[in-house]
């Protein structure tokens, strides 16, 4: 089954589009941030999938194990996760201040308040 062979990538595509849809369609600023998070998570899975070698072990150098998964994507994703956390934290901090300033976290109400 070709679909099952690439199950990781199908999951990535579905998660990515779900996240993206949430960002675009939702009116609530917090929900948009959740959408961004789902979107980023899908990228993490994408990278980790690149690193997997069929039948490979964990990337530890040891006698008798020649075939191991690529370690680099994991390292990259650790960095990307940190970046993602920073973005989410900053986004939530902004939402808190927006809520204090405008008394709402709904996109359309803020736009209305800004155009006045």
């Amino acid at each position, binding site marked *: 089954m070709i679909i099952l062979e690439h199950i990781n990538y199908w999951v990535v595509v579905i998660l990515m589009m779900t996240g993206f849809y949430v960002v675009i369609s939702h009116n609530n600023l917090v929900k948009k941030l959740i959408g*961004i998070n789902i979107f980023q998570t899908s990228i993490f899975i994408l990278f980790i999938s690149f690193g997997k070698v069929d039948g490979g072990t964990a990337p530890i150098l040891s006698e008798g194990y020649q075939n191991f998964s690529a370690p680099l994507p994991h390292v*990259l994703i650790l960095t990307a996760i940190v970046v993602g956390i920073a973005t989410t934290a900053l*986004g939530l901090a902004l939402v808190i201040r927006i809520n204090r300033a405008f008394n709402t976290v709904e996109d359309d109400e*803020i736009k209305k308040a800004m155009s006045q």
Partner: protein
Amino acid sequence: MTSHLAVLQVVTPLLAAPVVVILHNKTLGWLIATLVSLSCFIIACVLCLQIYDGNNIVYTLGGWAAPAGIEYHVDRLTAFLLIIISGLATFILIGARESIDNEISADRLYLFYTAFLLNLTGLLGVIVTGDAFNVFVFIEIASLSSYALISIGRDKRSLYAAYQYLIFGTIGASFILIAIGLMYAVTGTLNIHDLHERLAHVQDSRTLITALAFFIIGIGLKAAIWPLHIWLPDAYTYSPSIVSTFLAGTSTKVFIYVLIRFVFSIFGIEFSINELSVQYILMSVALIAIVYGSLQAIKQDSLKRLLAYSSIAQIGYMILAISLVTVAGVAAGLIHVFNHAIIKVTLFLCVANIIYFTGTDSINKLAGLGKQMPVTCGLFVIAGLSIIGVPLTAGFTSKWFLIKATIDSGYWLVIPVIVISSLMAIVYIWKVVEQIYFKEADHAHVVTNKAMPYSMYVSLFVFTAACIYFGLQTDINVGLAQLIADDLIGARP
């Protein structure tokens, strides 16, 4: 010591940022930020002299050789951009104190300088690094700090502008990350030079086409290329004036650098231009951006928003020049990156002075300002002429080389668009000039600060002088830009 210059460029502002937080003092913060920017500027100039003959500097971080380790790579393109960014940072900060004190509440001032230094770190890092994943990390450092910078002012609308920029920026950066990941999946390396060599052997790969598509969309969001520019006007309008000045001069320029670096140095002309014809997409988008940006600028009442839309049009010029994919075209694009940075910063600094004096940037309320602020208004006119492209100013050099490059490539139909857009630039600059010089002041200005401190003119004079100098004496920027274009495109006609 001199062998470590490439990395010092990034490490100095990065280390200075926490020092500013610990010192918790606005004057010291300003002093440190200015000195650090100045040292970066000097380092950039030294680096430029060292590599001017074409001996590129390769610095391996921690002594780990590429492709396993990360390397910093300084060639002429890098040095050119480093000088622009660090130079702008230095000369903007020198005269920025009063305006910053005025527009940002006192308890946040030291945080402003911290975020500024982090932003500088990110921008310089994107340029100097020779590792594709590192580019992403530095892009995020620069972006996160710029969201903070935008929202640091008193205007509550800036919060929403920063949030919008955060959403768009994160999606853009994530798209770039996907592109880098796909390239890694094809080649197994992240080093920019290694990527270029290995990608040359990978042809007809659908993964690579996807990577390029993701990259173009991502960088389009970050560099505010026409349909993806929506975040830019709000972000520039509601942020403190000095922040708008700095972002307008630097951040979009850096992302145009990333575009050039990835399309020419990583994907390679063979793949992205000959096979996929990316240049036609970029060119059509650029033409729309030029017309749309100028049209919108005419309609605006807020001076900052007017300049923001003008920036979108000017980014269009840069993309248009690059999309010609000739030596002359790329050189014209780089010349415009340089000149536009100076001109837009001059204009925004004038607005910073106007806001300091009157407390508003609404054009309708500025009637008769020419008499009250003769120096600022005079300099605004000079910079305005420069952005229109009047001879003897920097803007003219850009337009001259751009039009020459388009004619050489045979795109005659593009020239009317450039001319029409220049005419529209006359309209939007005239709109301001008419208000400040030819309308009687019908109501008193909302004056917040009567006396203008002299320090606020320092940066303004430096940049106006640069506007005129680079209009008369083009050896430095044009010469370097042509060398870079030669490096990038090589023998291609």
